[in-house]
């Protein structure tokens, strides 16, 4: 199929341009496309708009693209983990479009499914509704939210087969499938590439039709909030 590339830089070759819109998978630091983010840093692409639930932390995840001032605008639901983000935002260097988390996920899925707009109750009567069309269904107010159509999706999965079929692992699935759906081109990094025919067709989370390029990467998989409980004495 020719979907497998040998490095993140190679997989992104020809896809990056200044001012582009990138949809990124991940929640916090869980299931983020670490290698692809690093390669975008290396490529130096500028004025990026990034649709991603969070903005990474200082020095890791999308934080590295903020440090290098490659991001012009974030579309996110929560950015509290990142001091550099806050500094740039408060100084007016960075634009921020807050989206309720579910609205952001649905906007990505909608873009991927050819739906340019949908109505939701989320955010009605709040600042999120400012400037948005309101329509009543069944005597209740709903606001119009628009699909996100990204130039590029960057996604992290657990396993891919050679045809791009993807399997995610536990809560590392999160925004990755909707982010993958909404890009004109989707590049995926995985922990393991397996031969075609080794995945059960009923277990595939995202069919290869959504996946254009694949790399196998090393993943730090940093834990943001390590919380544990004590073992009871035996």
């Amino acid at each position, binding site marked *: 199929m020719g979907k497998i590339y040998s490095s993140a830089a190679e997989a992104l070759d020809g896809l990056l341009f200044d001012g582009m819109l990138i949809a990124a998978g991940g929640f916090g630091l*869980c299931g983020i496309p670490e290698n692809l983010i690093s390669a975008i840093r290396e490529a130096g692409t500028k004025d990026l708009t990034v649709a991603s639930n969070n903005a990474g932390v200082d020095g890791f995840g999308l934080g590295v693209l903020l440090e290098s001032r490659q991001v012009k605008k974030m579309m996110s639901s929560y950015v509290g983990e990142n001091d550099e983000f806050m500094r740039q935002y408060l100084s007016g260097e960075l634009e921020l479009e807050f989206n*309720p*988390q579910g609205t952001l996920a649905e906007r990505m899925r909608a873009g991927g499914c050819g739906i340019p707009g949908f109505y939701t109750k989320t955010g009605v009567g709040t*600042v999120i509704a400012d400037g948005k069309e309101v329509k009543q269904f069944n005597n209740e107010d709903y606001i119009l939210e628009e699909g996100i159509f990204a130039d590029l999706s960057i996604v992290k999965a657990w396993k891919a087969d050679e045809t791009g079929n993807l399997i995610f692992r536990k*809560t*590392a*699935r999160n925004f*990755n499938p909707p982010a993958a759906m909404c890009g004109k081109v989707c590049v995926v990094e995985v922990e393991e590439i397996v031969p075609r025919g080794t995945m059960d067709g009923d277990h595939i989370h995202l069919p290869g039709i959504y996946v254009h390029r694949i790399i196998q990467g090393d993943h730090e998989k940093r834990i943001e909030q390590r919380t*544990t409980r004590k073992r009871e004495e035996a």
Partner: protein
Amino acid sequence: MPWDRNQMAERAAQELDDGMYVNLGIGIPTLVANYVGDKDITLQSENGMLGMGPFPYEGEEDPDLINAGKQTITELARTSYFDSATSFGMIRGGKIAAAILGAMEVAENGDLANWMIPGKLVKGMGGAMDLVAGVGRVIVVMDHTNKHGVSKILKRCTLPLTGRGVVDRIITNLGVLDVTHKGLHIQELAPGVTRDEMIAATEATIV
């Protein structure tokens, strides 16, 4: 004597019935899980999981298994995983029976403010707006007054809203209030708290 944090969580746990799917916010709401007892409650983590288990034992943390507070957690025998669009689809679609959340302000018409204070650092609403707009029942658990002794239950919210007319019940250190179409109604008082004390501590009108 007014309830402490744990007693408020224990009281909130009474809101949950067998078989319910529930979303618990950060802070006191998280403590509610300690008081569900034998009830068969399934906790949602809105980053894509139903059937959230306790924190892992040290050394068993899995970076691919976190909750919406980004904390490492574990799975249970009933656990299912799904993507964020599906997760918020079930929230928006009213499949989650109840959300128990903290708040900065609640108004007598059910308005809720719990995500931003103008002039302070704004971190974002995360999934809070989706939850309050979508789940079957929104239960707020919070201190009745702020650290300056000022009521957090108001005639009108002063902070930017998380949702309009969304709160069903408020559990505070002083007792339990219901938001009805006629206004706030006292459902229960913490031991030793009088109706007059509750009214005095509340800016909103109690009917």
